[in-house]
Structure formats: C-alpha cells, structure tokens
C-alpha cells in the first residue's frame, strides 16, 4: 500500500469512527451516565433508589417556601419541577447559609440524599443562573450604578 493510499484509508476510517461516536452520543447512547440531576418528579419515580444514595436534584425554589434560621444555620425550602409545582414538590433541608443568588423562583441543584421521611437532605446547595444577562433595573440598582451606561 502506497503511503498516500494508506493515509487516505486512515482518513476515511477516522471520519467513520468519529461519525459513529458522535451519532451514538447524540442518540443517547451514554445518556444514563451523563444524568447530572433528577427533577423532583424523577426523584418520586425512583424513590426506592433515591433514599440513602447520593443524588442530585434540580428544580425551582417554590414561592414562600424558604425558611432560613441564621442562629441554627438551618435552611429549608421546597423545590418543584417549575416555578409553580403543585404535584411533586420536595422539601429540602440544608445546614448552610444560602448562596448570595439564592432566592424564591430561582433554579437550584441540590446534592445529598432522600430521607425516609420523603424530604431531601442536602450537603450542597448550588444555584443555577439563567442565560439572561440584564443590567440592574432602577428598583434594585446599587448606588454606584455606572452613569456611563447612557454614553454607549
């Protein structure tokens, strides 16, 4: 086999392997291994597996559900599939101060385990930021909001 032929055989083989690999990945071939978090509904579905095992649950902090006790460091809130979830919300207990962006209506991913009581005991509370990037509105503008913005 001449070296040019050999190179082109390798080219076709490499492209084929790459295409097949990408196809398998995009069709969900490794989906199970890349499940980063379960939603509250999925936690309910997998209730037997969720108790005792370390899992992540992602969802939205429900309105009027946040209770933070600075003296005991007890943080309690409810996570639902969406901003208003009446079917499958799960109550989360954590022993840490809420992160700065934490608030009602924001997306969170909590790491921990389900308890027999049907609540989630979180070791870690992570806050999700949406893809929205907005200048502060007047109501929440910090005192030092840059006056130069108008100059653009």
């Amino acid at each position, binding site marked *: 086999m001449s*070296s*040019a032929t*050999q*190179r*082109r055989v*390798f*080219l076709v*083989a*490499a*492209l084929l*392997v*790459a295409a097949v*690999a*990408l196809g398998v*990945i*995009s069709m969900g071939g490794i*989906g199970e291994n*890349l*499940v*980063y*978090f379960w*939603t509250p509904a999925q936690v309910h579905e997998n209730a037997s597996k969720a108790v005792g095992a370390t899992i992540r649950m*992602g969802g939205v902090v429900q309105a009027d559900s946040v209770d933070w006790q600075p003296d005991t460091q007890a943080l309690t809130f409810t996570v639902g599939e969406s901003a208003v979830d009446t079917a499958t919300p799960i109550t989360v207990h954590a022993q840490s101060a809420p*992160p*700065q*962006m*934490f608030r009602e209506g924001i997306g969170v*991913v909590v*790491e921990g385990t389900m308890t027999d009581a049907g609540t989630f005991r979180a070791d*870690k*509370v*992570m*806050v*999700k*930021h*949406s*893809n*929205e*990037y*907005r*200048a*502060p*509105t007047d109501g*929440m503008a*910090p005192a030092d*909001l*840059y006056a*130069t*913005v108008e*100059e*653009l």
Partner: protein
Amino acid sequence: MKSPLAIVGLIFVVLGMLATAAGHWIGLFVAPPEAMMGDVGRILYVHVPTAWAALIFFMVAFVAAIGSLWSGWRGFDAATTGAVEVGTVLTFLLLIQGSIWARPTWNTWWTWDPRLTTSAVLAAAFGVVLLMRRLIDQPAKRQMATAVATIIAFVDVPVVYFSVKWWASLHQQASTRASMDSVMGLPLGVAALGMLVMGTGLMLLRTKVELVRLAHEADAPELPPTAAPLRLDDPAGGDPTLDEAT
C-alpha cells in the same frame, strides 16, 4: 523573522490583543453590573469569547487534519499542531475562568455537570494529541497519528456545544441577543472578535514554529534525540549534580 507567516501572525496577535483589551475595558469599566451576579457577571466578557475561540480553533484543526491525511503536506501537519495547541491553551483557560466564576455564583468551584465534564474531556483529549505528537519520532507516522487523533478528539467539540441542550445541566444555555441587554452584547462581541484574531495570530506563529522544527528535522535526520551539545556536564568526567555544587 522574515517569514510572511510570522509577520502576519504577529500583526494578528497585536490587533487581536488591542481589540480584546478594548472589549474587556468596556466590559469591566463601562458596562453595568449584572442584575443578579453583580460585578462577578463581568467574567462573561472573557469566558464566552474564550469558549467560542477554543471551539473554532478545534474546528480549524479538524479541517487541517483532514487536509493533512488527504495530501500528506507538511504545512497541514504544522497547522493542525498550531490550531490544536491554541485551542488546548484556551480550553484550559476556559476551565479555570469557569471555576472562578462558579464559586460566587453557583456556590461551587467544580461540579460534574455535562458541560463541565465534556469540556474537561476536551482539554484532556487534545492534551493527549499534543503529548502523543511529542512521543513519535518518525515524521510521516507522527503526521498521520496527529491527524487521526485530532479527528477523533474533535467528536467532543459538538458534544460540548450541545451538552446544555442534550442533558440537564447546571450550566446555562447559550445566550442569545434576546437574552442579553445590548449594553452587554457590545463588549462581548468586541472581545470575541479580538480573541478570535489574537488566537489566529498565535496559531500562525505556532504553525511557523512547527514548520521550522520540521524543516530542521528533515535537514538533519541523523541527529540523535539527545544531541551532544545539550549536555552541560563533561561527558568524559563523572556526572556533576547540583548537590555536589553546594
């Protein structure tokens, strides 16, 4: 440094750095803080251009690798190396920037989110391509291995890009014009263009460096890997070490 490739490369680097610096300046000192992330949100203007540039240079590497295998031309081999190395440097920077950004916003330095995991795989995969290249002495074999490995590693590029769409993730979706105030879009666009031009310049310089190395290697193929002039100690005597000197 009379080579046109080196001169064009340097011009691109200088122009790209000026544009990147301008975009960063606007992002840091003129644009407003972000409504939720505050000043920390300004990391956007360095992180997103780095990500775009990294993925684009891996695309360039992919095309160069195909050319390299098809034609066997040494220039494609050097260009593949240049694009892979610049992309890899940018991907490592991307991971560091992201980690720094994640701590105050997400409340963690690192998590095995699909976007983060696939990005780490990207850095590792192309890092391996560069390492492998160093370990093969025979030029034709090295050219073929580099190109094949680049094509295989490239599979992860679309996976990184679509990871936030395919799987549930902590990392946000890609921003759009609608999801970003125009006052933030301007410094982002300027910095992204600057990073792309700067990266292109760095890639051209790295390609030239590789071409020089390959030409030198072809001129003197009989040189042993550890050439005698590199030895600092006296070959006839013992093996003096730093310990003995102190």
